[in-house]
């Protein structure tokens, strides 16, 4: 294979990135959801600056998890419905690699833009500006964990009615550690404390998810084909 020719997996990554943005669906919907919820918080939790500043980092982080979950339902479903998954199964790459690449493309197309919104939303809600850096790092790593863990749920729920609900039930327990580590890092940064230890734990968990989740998701895809 010549160096100038993209490998099949790179071609799949580029295709998925293009599909995510072409419809405008995934990233824009998740981003709009994120901003919408962030805008509703002062209306429901009360607009007093002290109270908002206290909950802002945690809320920004929580809404990030929910927005990621919302967009994951459609990770494999279109390809499964229209027969593309049948064809992807006939390539040289195993289905675990297909799952890994699709989750990576989802993270780049949806997770990363959401992560950029997270510090902005937290600061807009009154959190101190110094949390922006840790918040961005935590949101990027957390989004990576969400995308790969969510891929397991998305693969296992293929063909099930109310698939989105199933994803939430399957994946939510796995999302607990990144939410705890991420929120702890952001909380520590808000109070000027040491936030790197929590961030390191979050990074470790995200890397574990990236390494292990594709195999489970690939097995789920294989099961959905039969």
């Amino acid at each position, binding site marked *: 294979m*010549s160096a100038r020719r993209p490998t099949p997996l790179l071609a799949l990554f580029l295709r998925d990135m293009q599909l995510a943005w072409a419809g405008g669906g995934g990233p824009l919907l998740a981003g709009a959801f994120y901003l919408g919820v962030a805008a509703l918080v002062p209306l429901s939790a009360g607009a007093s600056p002290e109270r908002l500043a206290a909950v802002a980092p945690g809320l920004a982080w929580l809404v990030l998890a929910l927005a990621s979950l919302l967009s994951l339902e459609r990770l494999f479903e279109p390809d499964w419905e229209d027969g593309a998954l*049948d064809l992807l199964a006939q390539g040289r790459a195993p289905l675990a690699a297909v799952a890994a690449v699709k989750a990576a493309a989802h993270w780049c197309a949806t997770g990363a833009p959401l992560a950029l919104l997270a510090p902005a939303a937290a600061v807009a809600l009154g959190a101190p500006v110094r949390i922006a850096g840790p918040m961005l790092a935590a949101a990027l790593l957390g989004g990576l964990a969400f995308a790969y863990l969510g891929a397991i749920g998305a693969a296992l729920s293929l063909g099930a009615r109310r698939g989105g609900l199933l994803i939430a039930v399957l994946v939510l327990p796995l999302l607990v550690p990144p939410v705890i580590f991420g929120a702890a890092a952001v909380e520590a940064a808000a109070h000027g404390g040491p936030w790197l230890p929590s961030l390191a734990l979050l990074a470790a968990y995200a890397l574990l998810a990236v390494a292990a989740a594709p195999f489970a998701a690939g097995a789920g895809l294989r099961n959905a084909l039969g």
Partner: protein
Amino acid sequence: MITAVSAEALALDRGGRRLFEDLSFHLRPGEAIALTGPNGAGKTSLLRAIAGLLRPAAGQIRFASAQGPIEADEARASALHWLGSADGLKGSRTAAAELRFWSEWTGESPVRLSGRGGPERSGPERERTTLDSVLDALGLTSHAHTEVRRLSTGQRRRLALARLLASFRPLWLLDEPLAPLDARWRTRVGEMMHAHLDEGGLIIAAVHDTLPIGARELRLEPA
């Protein structure tokens, strides 16, 4: 390069029901099988089982090369083209982009058929020429930059068929390949299948009409 596909005492279940059992066949290079039978007889399921998308309830599907038997997974990953009733084409992408993606995904068979000139893959320039000629062979040149959702049903099927030519893989599994095509394109696609068989390819196609090639009929009857 696979040269033979065979099934031995194959049985398939679908939805808790036995579709057929004790089915055997052997297919050699240059041969084609036309799967016929009433709706629900299991034509598509048999194709899916050969493609590894459905696990047989009993029996074996084997692939062999001139050197001897080869692993089914290896054969499926490198030597098999699948054309299902769902074509997997994305409506929001152009015909050329979809064809390029799938030709990159299926790639080139590692061992070439002897004597086959075939598309050379020496660089992007040459590759573009190959894809252009494939689009031309299926009458899609003027639609290369059309979004797939704007193609007619027949044009869309021709784009799905174009994938078979964009990268060489010896075994074609086709589910109702001709259904939405008009008489002229049925003839042309028949010629395409002929050329594939002449190059030593193998074709298994589920059909209701007769195939425009000399194919052995394998009739599935509901058990």
